[in-house]
């Protein structure tokens, strides 16, 4: 006789008074963990947001599971939520409030929120509207840290700090020189000291002006450089495992036969054909057409390559 074993989350779910609320709470905990370190404030915010929930168990074990990013538990919660939730809006509103309540959501949460929207069948336009209504801010595209441009401000910041340090050193050296001069001047007569001081000041002013002009020139050339690079970025890039990726688009494993590919293509093409979305507006149709294109391209490629 095999003894059934249950993971901690499954046990919580089975003892919960309201399974959908427990599942929603775990997913909200996931959002919270992705927003940054979880302190007392964050926990209190989660509690106050979910005071209508009827799960009837402690929050701490759920937060522990969320902090461990237990993928199986999150998948189970997502399935329960998808099955039980009547329309995803109330849940998505909570998730958005949690992620964007205090400033911009973290890059990870941008993707988590979009995943939750897809899970609950909320299309991009409606999601953007919901986001704006909940957080009073327009929905931004998630930043892309795999691009050089994302890190540019930090490089600039570092360069600025370096520059400031150099300037401080320069100033210290100059002050040192001035002190030296002062000492020397004390030994000389009063009239001579006045005159020399004035010329020194003038020279300094000139130097400052030159440095400013130089800095401006640097900034311009940097901007121009970046602009040029964005134009240079190629639109298509063929990575090494293109065949594997094409198989993934069709949801197939490595080594699928031609027939399997054809069958998967027919199924997906039917599901994502733009004509099916004709009634749902232009944007939905455009996104379906992009998906359809991707599927078609993958199929064409595989038909050429796989024998």
């Amino acid at each position, binding site marked *: 006789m095999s003894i*059934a074993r249950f993971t901690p989350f499954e046990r919580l779910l089975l003892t919960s008074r309201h399974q959908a609320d427990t599942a929603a709470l775990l997913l909200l905990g996931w959002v919270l963990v992705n927003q940054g370190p979880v302190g007392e404030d964050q926990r209190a915010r989660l509690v106050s947001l979910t005071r209508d929930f009827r799960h009837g168990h402690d929050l701490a074990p759920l937060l522990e599971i969320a902090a461990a990013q237990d*993928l199986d538990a999150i998948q189970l919660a997502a*399935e329960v939520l998808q099955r039980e939730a009547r329309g995803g809006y109330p849940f998505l509103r909570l998730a958005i409030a949690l992620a964007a309540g205090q400033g911009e959501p973290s890059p990870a949460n941008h993707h988590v929120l*979009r995943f939750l929207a897809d899970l609950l069948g909320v299309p991009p336009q409606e999601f953007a509207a919901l986001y704006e209504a909940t957080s009073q801010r327009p929905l931004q595209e998630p930043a892309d840290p*795999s691009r050089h441009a994302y890190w540019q401000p930090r490089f600039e910041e570092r360069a600025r700090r370096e520059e400031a340090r150099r300037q401080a050193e320069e100033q210290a050296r100059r002050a040192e020189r001035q002190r030296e001069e002062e000492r020397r001047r004390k030994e000389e007569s009063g009239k001579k000291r006045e005159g020399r001081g004035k010329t020194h000041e003038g020279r300094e002013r000139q130097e400052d002006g030159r440095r400013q002009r130089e800095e401006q020139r640097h900034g311009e050339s940097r901007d121009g450089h970046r602009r040029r690079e964005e134009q240079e970025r190629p639109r298509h*890039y063929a*990575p*090494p*495992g293109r065949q594997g990726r094409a198989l*993934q688009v069709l949801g197939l494993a490595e080594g699928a036969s031609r027939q399997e590919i054809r069958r998967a293509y027919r199924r997906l093409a039917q599901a994502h054909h733009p004509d099916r979305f004709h009634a749902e507006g232009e944007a939905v149709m455009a996104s379906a057409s992009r998906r359809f294109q991707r599927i078609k391209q993958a199929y064409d490629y595989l038909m050429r390559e796989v024998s």
Partner: protein
Amino acid sequence: MRDLYRRLGVPPDSDGETLSRAIAACEHRTLRRDAEAVLVEAEHRREYDALHATLGDIGRLRSRLGLTHGAHWRDGLADDFSAPADLAGSHHEALMRRLSQAALAHDRWRRGRALGLGLGLFLLGLLAGAATCHWLLG
């Protein structure tokens, strides 16, 4: 976001030396520049890796839940982070299956216990009878 490790053809946990060799061998100029900005700096790489792990998780979740063609999952994301088809099936169904199995086992145990109790009482009576006979006759 793109998966730079995948595009460079190195595993995500590779050390700095392997990475810099892969970056030097990369023929794509823009990709090389991006990889240098992101992966060579330890601090940048840590941040990138955290997001990389989250996106990998989301990719796996999407493939298990059948959401790899979701409207919010596009371009670089969908190309680089969609996990291969996962035929593990629904966790919820698995849980229900295990739950009914556990209930069955429990029932069987209850029935077995009742049967065992009856048998035990019968044996006890038999023993008591034998002892009484022994006492009366002996």
